[in-house]
Structures are given as C-alpha cells and as structure tokens.
C-alpha cells in the first residue's frame, strides 16, 4: 500500500510540505491535503494514512482503494454529505465551503520530497 507515514516529533512546521502539495495538486487555489498544526509541545501533521475508514462510511460507494492501495474519491458519485470528513480518524479528509466534494491525499509524494527533517516518508 502506497502511503505516507508521519513522525510528528520531527516536524518543524516549515510548511514546505503544504506548499509543495498545493503546487503539485491544486495550483491556483488555496487547497492542500497535508496540514501542519503548530503546537507548544509538538507540532501535528494531518495527512491521510490510507486507512480506508472513509470507504466504509460513504453511503454511495464513492470512495475506493485503487490498485496501489491509495484511497480515492470518484467525484461523480459523491453526494457531498461530508461523513468521510467527520469520521476521518486522522482529520485528513478536507473540504471547503465553495465546493461540494471533499478532497484528500493521493500519495503523490510531493510533500515527502521537500520535507527537510524526514517527518513524512513514503511507504510502499
């Protein structure tokens, strides 16, 4: 399964990952599917680990796992209920108020490539 693993203790909140994600996948928007939350004790990285919880809560079977094990959304099937957002244990299913369909990490690896501290790594 192709997925990103994270180590919060290594995150320095430089946000290069967010920037790379945005440029690779959502150029021209403010969207991204990795998010860093700065905390006093330890920063927190929100990114999908491809666990598939969202697949089981989707009422229209719009979410599926592809041949590489990556969880993906078939946008034409989505009814925008956002249950997948609410039930994501990693807080890594994203949405915004201007769009109906949520969006998520597809394990493209752009963020991993720019992380200077190896706080995120790709596992296959």
């Amino acid at each position, binding site marked *: 399964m192709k997925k990103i693993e994270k180590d919060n203790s290594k995150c320095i909140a430089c946000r290069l990952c967010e920037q790379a994600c945005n440029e690779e996948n959502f150029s021209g928007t403010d969207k991204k599917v990795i998010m860093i939350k700065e905390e006093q004790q330890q920063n927190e990285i929100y990114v999908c680990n491809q666990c598939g919880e969202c697949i089981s809560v989707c009422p229209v079977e719009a979410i599926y796992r592809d041949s590489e094990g990556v969880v993906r959304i078939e946008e034409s099937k989505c009814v925008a*209920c*956002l249950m997948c957002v*609410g039930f994501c244990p990693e807080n890594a299913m994203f949405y915004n108020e201007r769009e109906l369909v949520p969006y998520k990490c597809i394990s493209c690896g752009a963020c991993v490539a720019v992380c200077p501290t190896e706080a995120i790594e790709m596992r296959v």
Partner: protein
Amino acid sequence: MNIEAIRNKHKLLMQYDYEKKNLHRGYTGKTLYINLSKNMVKEKDVTEEMKDKFIGGKGFGLKYLWDAVTPETKWHSPENEIIISSGPIGGITQYPGAGKSLVVTLSPLTDMPIDSNVGGYFGPYLKFSGWDALEIQGKAENDVIVFIDGNKGVVTIEEAPLEAVDAHVLTEQLTEMYGLDDEDKKHISVISAGTAAENSLIGILNFSFHDVRRNVSRLKQAGRGGIGTVFRDKKIKAIVISYRGITGDLNQPADLGKIQKAGLRLHKEMACLDKEQNEMRMVGTCNIIDVMADYDLLPVHNFKFGTHPDAKNISTKVFRNKYFTQGIPDGCWYGCSMACAKAVDQFEIKTGPYRGQVVTVDGPEYENAAGLGANCGIFDPEIIIELNFYCDTYGIDTISFGTMTAFIMECFENGIIDEKVTDGMELKFGNGLAALELIHKISKGEGFGKIAGQGTKKMKALFVKNYGADESFLNDIGMEQKGLEYSEYVSKESLAQQGGYGLTNKGPQHDEAWLIFMDMVNNQIPTFEDKAEALHYFPMFRTWFGLMGLCKLPWNDVTPADNSQTDEPAKVPGHVQNYVEIFEGVTGKKIDKDELIRQSERVYNFQRVFNIRMGKGLRTHDQVPYRSVGPVTEEEYLSRQERYDKQLKELLGLDPKDYETKEKVQRMRTYRTDQYEQLIDAVYARRGWTHNGIPSKEKLEELGMDLPEVIAVVEKAMLDLK
C-alpha cells in the same frame, strides 16, 4: 414473473408533462395535485403565506387537507387526500436525518388528521423533481401506479394490474422496472402499502430506498394511523419516482457553509461519542430495550408490567451480536451518520406465503421488539423479526398490531373471547405462532383477522356488543386513545408522560414528548407547572422536525460532550443551535430558538383546531385509558405492591395495612385520575387553550393564526360547549 410482461399490461390513463421549477432556498414553490377520480393533474403555487404560516412538511399537509375536506368527510370519502411533503430542509445531504417525508390524511382509526414521519428517498426526490408537496385526491377505478420522472418532467397515471401488492415484492419489481440497471436503482423510490392495508384499518405506507451495499430495496414506514388503508382505498398500488443527478446543493441553500459546519459537528459527535452513548450506528433504536426493562418501562402483557425475566432473550446485545449486520452505513437518506436503519440480512421466513424466502428485514426497531415482542409476552427474537417482516410487507403498523394483539391476548386470557371467536387461534400471551397466524389472517381479511384489523377501539365496542364484555374494563385495558393504539412505553409512573401520550394531537404516539426520564428518573419537572412547561416546549420543538423534513433522532440520540454542563441538558442546546443555523443556511431567513418554537406553535394549534372541526380535539378526547395511568387490576397492584403501598402512605397519608388490595387499587385510582386532570388544566393554560382544550382566540391572534376559517371553528366550538 417477467418484469416486461408486467409492464406490458400497464394502461396509460393520463400523462402530464411539466416544466421543472428551479429550487430556491429549500422550496420549488409548486405543489403537484393529482385527482385519481378524474385522471387529472395540475400544478398549484406555494404562496409566501403558506411558507410563513405552515413552513412545509406536515404544515403543508394539514393546510391542503383542511382545504380539501369538510366536517362530514370520512377517511374513505373521495375528497379525502393523501399529502406527502418533505419541508424546506429536507433533501440536504450534510446534516443527519434530513430526508424525511411527512404524510397527512384523514385517519380511518381516529377520523381526524393523522401525520406520519418517514424516511427513504421519496421526499427529497419529489422536491428535486420540482414539487414541494404531492397532493392526491379522488379514487381510481382500478389499481394504478403514479409515476413521476423528475428529470424529464413527466407524471403518468397507469393502470397496473399484474404487480404484486405486498411491499417487499412490489418494491423490487418496480425498482427493477423503472431503474435502467443495477447502478440506477438508487435513483428510484417507491411508495407502497400491502395486502393487509386493504383489509384492515391499520395500513401503512412503505417508502423505499435502494441499499447499494446489500443491493436490495429497503423499506421505511409511515406507520401510524392507517394511511396505507386510505392509499389502497384509493386503489393506488404504488407511487414511483425517479431522479438522477443527486448533488449536495440541490436545495440551492442560502449559505452552504453554515450547513456544512453544523453537519460536521454532528458527524464528529457520532464518530467519537456514539459508541459510549447510545450505539445508534450499531443497533439503532434497539439500544433502549435493556434500559426500558431495567427501569420497569418495557411494556409486558398489554402494559400490565414493565419488565420480564425473559426480556434478556430480546436484549440489545442479542440483536447487535446475532442479527443486525454491522459495519454498513445504514442511513435512510444521504448524510445520516446516525445510521439507525439497521437490518437483519439473510433471514429465512418460516411461516405464511413467503415461507422459505430469504429476505432482508428492516429493523426490528425498539417499538417492534417491545410491541411485537414483550407486550405480547413474546421473547423469541426470530418471531419478532418475522412479525416485523410481515407487518412491513403486508403493510400494517407494527405499533398498532403489537398493542392491539396484546389487548386481544389479555381479553383471551380473561375469557372475554375464546377460540370460537378467534377461529381456533390460542391467542395467549407468549404464543408467537398464533400472533403470526393472526397477521396472515389480517392480510387476507379473513374471519377474526378482519375483526382484529379494525383496531382496538372498534374491537372494544364489538366485544361489548357481541360477547357481553364489561365495557369499563375494556376501556381500562384497551390501550388506545382517540382511536390510535399506544406506542410502547409504560407511562404509569410518569404523570408527565401520561400527558405526553394523552395530550397529543394525533393520538398516543411518543413523537411529541418523551418525558419519562426527566420526570420519573431524574425528577427534573416535579410541579404541575414544570410538567406543563415540558408539555408545551417539547411537543412544539418536536413538531418542528415534521415541518422541515427532519428526523428527531439526531437531536438527542447523541449529545455533545459538554451537554450535561449546559443550562438545560434535556433540550440539548448545542443541537437546537445547529437547527437554527441549518434553517438559516437553507432558507436565508433569520430565526432564533424562540421563533423556532413559534413556527411549530402555529401548525400545532392549527392541527388542534382541525381536530375540533372534525368533531374531536376537546378535553373529553384527551382522556386516557387507566392502564396508562395506574394499576387496573389487583394482579398489577400486587406485582408492584411495595411501590404502590409506599405511595399510598407518602402521597395519600393512608396506612396500607388498613385496606384490602381491592380498595387500595381504588384509592390509588382516584388519586392518579385527579392528578391527570390537574395536569390537563396546567397544560391547557400553558398552551393558551381554554378549560375545554380549545385554542383561545387570543392565542391564535398572537401566533398570527387567526385565519377566518380557523376562528370560525373555534367560535362554533365555544358556542356548542355553552
């Protein structure tokens, strides 16, 4: 039978092409009117006044029904209508429980308006197809199907002679017939009744949705008050709708973000808190079976008792571990993370015409386990599931069937009726096979099945007339009021809940108020004034769901983590605020929590006046059977002697040792009956009603419901009472 062969026998009676109206902020502004006697279809405008005063859902249903009938109209009169409407919020996909339809008609059980709240996809699809409401009047000559194609903008009325009548077969036939392929089946929703609906007065409507994971059509029920009986009397076999292209903004809401935020708050509560609170996602409403049995509230043997040693056989755990299929998002509309529409899959039917069939059964829900089970002394889960299946597919109300069968069983055990009357059925408490035999007879309208299907009220009169039964005893133990059977909670130890059942508009259904824990367990409403306030607030608050197209359950079957620290935890203030926000988010109209209650009060009082217009709705109709208030028999008294003796001592200042049981029963009765009367006084005063239960003119003026036709009814009623 081959679907093509069935379809080929359809005869088109009329076709109506329409231009679909764009939805704007929750409304299409149009109602679809169909007259089956004339094969006529027309569009009606939904006025701003309709929206302001009646909002939608059952508000629209009551308004259209009022305009359609006279005080002389009976349930089977051609002018009686069935109105189906969702409401402005209905059809949003971001907040749990937002796919409800409200169905209104004149009830064959109560002879006044009944409203029933039902899931399934029909309500949202109707709105997306261009209609805020569907209003059906008249009667067809032969069995018909009404079909609405919401994408093409076509309505047809077709004679349909060959389709099955029983719901699980008919729904599968029509879903296949109107769906283009398996993938398309989720775009079809079917309304059907069943064979028992046409042979009894307790018929229901089944609203379908196609379950994509099970690949089976699921059924949700508009259960109360005999709506399915009216449906079959109009010779409607089914109403079918198709709508393709569901997205999350079809309501064209004013502020989608507001709705999304509120929905996410609830989704997260369901994700994090449901497992430790009610387990709705695992067991649905069956989560309360054990709680009810523990608190002596589970009706047993026609509401005589509140628990039973065998209740463990039908416990929550049994249904969770052995029967309900887990891990499926069982919402009856998109976005319902509460997902309570549990199902038993791969269930093999053991009796009746479908013996040997392997089916998916919707439920059982709590009411079914309690009514079909404990109340009839049946503690075999598989009998309960099979009764549940047959109630649904035959098209009768599980609650009415359970409560009236319990009544029959008590009459049988008391020798009021015997096997000669029941066609040989030994209808004793606990005889599950006899209960199944009874339901098969009801579906055919045969023998005692025909009698039982008339419901408790009519059976009482018949048993008195034909078998010399003691009328006052039957009135005590026949658990109906206004003609409607009680739902499945023992209210004896909660005066507030006695009112929660007795002071309802449609009859003793718990959807207006469920106050037992506030009252009996937590003692939060000790005085008459406190109880009256609760019997004002909660019925009004809960009415609001039926105006909007919403389900009640997500309001308080999960609560925010900090709910117990709020000022009024019973109201779940966090969720009330969610509702204020999603109303604004959809309609763009600003309201607060007080205006929310006023919206309901307008419709609630209108419904009360409607009841009065139909010759009901007065204080005399709010009287309740004593079984709902206290122990009718010495057996009941003795079963809880310690409790009752203590009450005699503490509340009446009597020493129980000085009295025989019979006298203690009587003393208790006098006291409790008087308490109920005092409760009525307090509640009427709080609701702005007269001593006789008539909404005062001042109250109607204050609400802006002083419509001339409403005031005329009120004035006439006041004059008549003088």
